[in-house]
């Protein structure tokens, strides 16, 4: 399970996850590698989230996208760092994510007869393209375009929004106060 603790010290040393009863500071990527159990996301939707993340931005799954979102959803909304808080969606945000993931899987099954994680790269890309335009036939969830934008932003955050991500792009980070340790390493 995950701790809801996420004060500033946590970010300096990573996020605080709880593994086998012990609190440990880890990056989301480390939490993924250690198979830290999810606290809020439904297990059935995690695979959909990973597959969607990879379609939106390759590398986001390994960067710990699902563990990052799960950690943020498990804490107090006031501490949330998710982009969704800017977008007029009332907290808590859990149902927005769960409903969007369920809807993604449902349209994959309706269009291609298989779960979203089992789609080919082309099939997944086709569906995500329709989501980005907000035009997915049979979509039943939060507005598809908004869900796409939110999840895309989360994927970008875990891949590019860190010191490692800046480095990967060749952008100097130039921090005054250091953020968390290098997520994604």
């Amino acid at each position: 399970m995950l701790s809801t603790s996420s004060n500033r010290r946590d970010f300096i040393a990573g996020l605080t996850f709880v593994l086998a009863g012990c609190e440990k500071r880890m990056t989301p990527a480390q939490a993924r590698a250690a198979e830290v159990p999810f606290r809020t996301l439904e297990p059935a939707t995690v695979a959909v989230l990973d597959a969607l993340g990879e379609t939106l931005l390759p590398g986001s799954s390994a960067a710990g996208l699902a563990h990052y979102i799960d950690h943020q959803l498990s804490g107090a909304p006031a501490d949330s760092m998710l982009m969704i808080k800017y977008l007029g969606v009332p907290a808590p945000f859990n149902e927005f994510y769960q409903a969007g993931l369920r809807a993604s899987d449902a349209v994959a099954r309706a269009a291609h007869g298989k779960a979203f994680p089992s789609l080919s790269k082309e099939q997944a890309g086709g569906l995500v393209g329709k989501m980005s335009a907000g035009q997915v036939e049979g979509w039943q969830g939060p507005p598809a375009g908004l869900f796409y934008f939110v999840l895309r932003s989360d994927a970008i955050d875990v891949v590019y929004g860190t010191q490692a991500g800046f480095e990967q792009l060749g952008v100097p980070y130039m921090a005054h106060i250091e953020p968390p340790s290098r997520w994604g390493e």
Partner: protein
Amino acid sequence: MTSLPQEPVDVIVVGSGAAGSNMAARLAEGGKRVLILEAGPERGPGHLVSSTLYARRVKWTGPPVLDEGRNPVGFVFNSAYGTGGAAMHHYAVWPRLHPEDFDMHSRHDRGLDWPLKYTDLAPYYDKVQQEAGVSGDATKEIWRPAGAPYPMPAVPVFPQGDAIARGFTKLGKTVAPLPIAVTSTPYNGRPTCLWDGWCDSGCPIGALANPLTIHLPRAASAGATLVNDAPVTRVLTTDDGTRAVGVEVALKDGSRQTVNAKLVVLAAFAVENPRLLLASATPKHPQGLGNSGGFVGRYIMTHAAGLVYGLFDEETRPYMGAFGGQLVNQDSYPKTTHAKSGAFGSYQWMIAQAVKPNDLLGISTTRPDLFGNALQDFMKRAVRGFAGMTAVCEDLPVADNRVTLTDQRDAHNVPIARVTHTTHDESVALWKASLVEGKEVMQAAGAKEVWTGPAGSMHIMGGTVMGTAVSNSVTNTYGQLHDIRNLVIAGPGLFPTSAGVNPTFTVHAIAARSAEHILATWTQLAG
């Protein structure tokens, strides 16, 4: 946590942002016992982590606000919760309003007139820019109204600014250094900015003139007390409704405490101020305090952002500089510049703003249509040659754009606010005109790709507008309610029009003028 005083104070200031901290400092220095009540948590420089993710925790996390209408004001993004308020993450672009902003209704039969003129505010702009420190070059700002030169030299221009300036120049337009309350030289013990583009996360080194750096230390030195986690639930008035006597504060254990004062200043931003006035209704003020004319909550405004981007072959180093930008152009300030396009109002360009890879204003979000390998390819190119600029487009005041109370209640049983905002057609046309001009500039500058963004919302103004009488406004020129003179509003909610520039400098100028008036008339006000 500092506890609430049991004894009456002279002044209660609700909110510790730009307006509240300014008023608190001046009133405390004038010898008044000042108590600042901040609804949000304590925040100091050590909390301002340089991270686009962490920056989101500085934004509003108070009671929910329903953000509605065709063009919502973006309340969470544009406000904040905690010490320093929204000014903690503001970008410190500090241009002055122009004389023509103050009598727009008389000149153009649009919007409202202000009850004061530019010349009334000019001395206070001069005073505030000296104490806060503004960098710029007044001689190069050919549009700038009369005023003292800036106390610091202009901010540096990086390759992103050079690239875009080339386009303006080719089209015969002018650019000047952006006036910005960020240190271009050491100033009053503050270090020079590093131009690292982290302004949105809050500046922890004192280079940017936020409340932690400027007015809260002054207020504290003069004896003012700041109490965090102290949400005000009501403003209390006398039985006859003619005077404010204090406020009711919600405590963490669920109880309420009354704090009495001779004067109350509401500086809780453009949505929370009218919410409090409406929620403080009494038999003498059944529609809410200051609302006998029906204007509390009305004329909410927000600047539409005209976002224009270009991708250049050259290295632009777009991550360098201040978040507010490097250069300014105000050629489109005259209100009828784009009348042929059906537009009305002013706009200015903030040119070459520092950008990071991610976040709502980051490079990746300028192309939300891209994903997968296309997104990766774009990011690799864009971090090398990206350039952007933003038009601050005037929003005509519309009475039905307003704050109202809902049937829903917050944790302290106070009705939560609904903000409804739909942009006036002539303001929409102005925003569209800015995009047309912006694309021309980028193309003239030699950008290989040019694109635009949606009309984002910048700043929130109005809701408690100043005017000449109850029949047209909520307050007088000093922010005093027309019918409760010792209840004072401070902040951008006072603006009768939004102008085409960033509001914080004007917020400070009005606050300085109001504080001076309060001190000069204290004997009458304090009763």
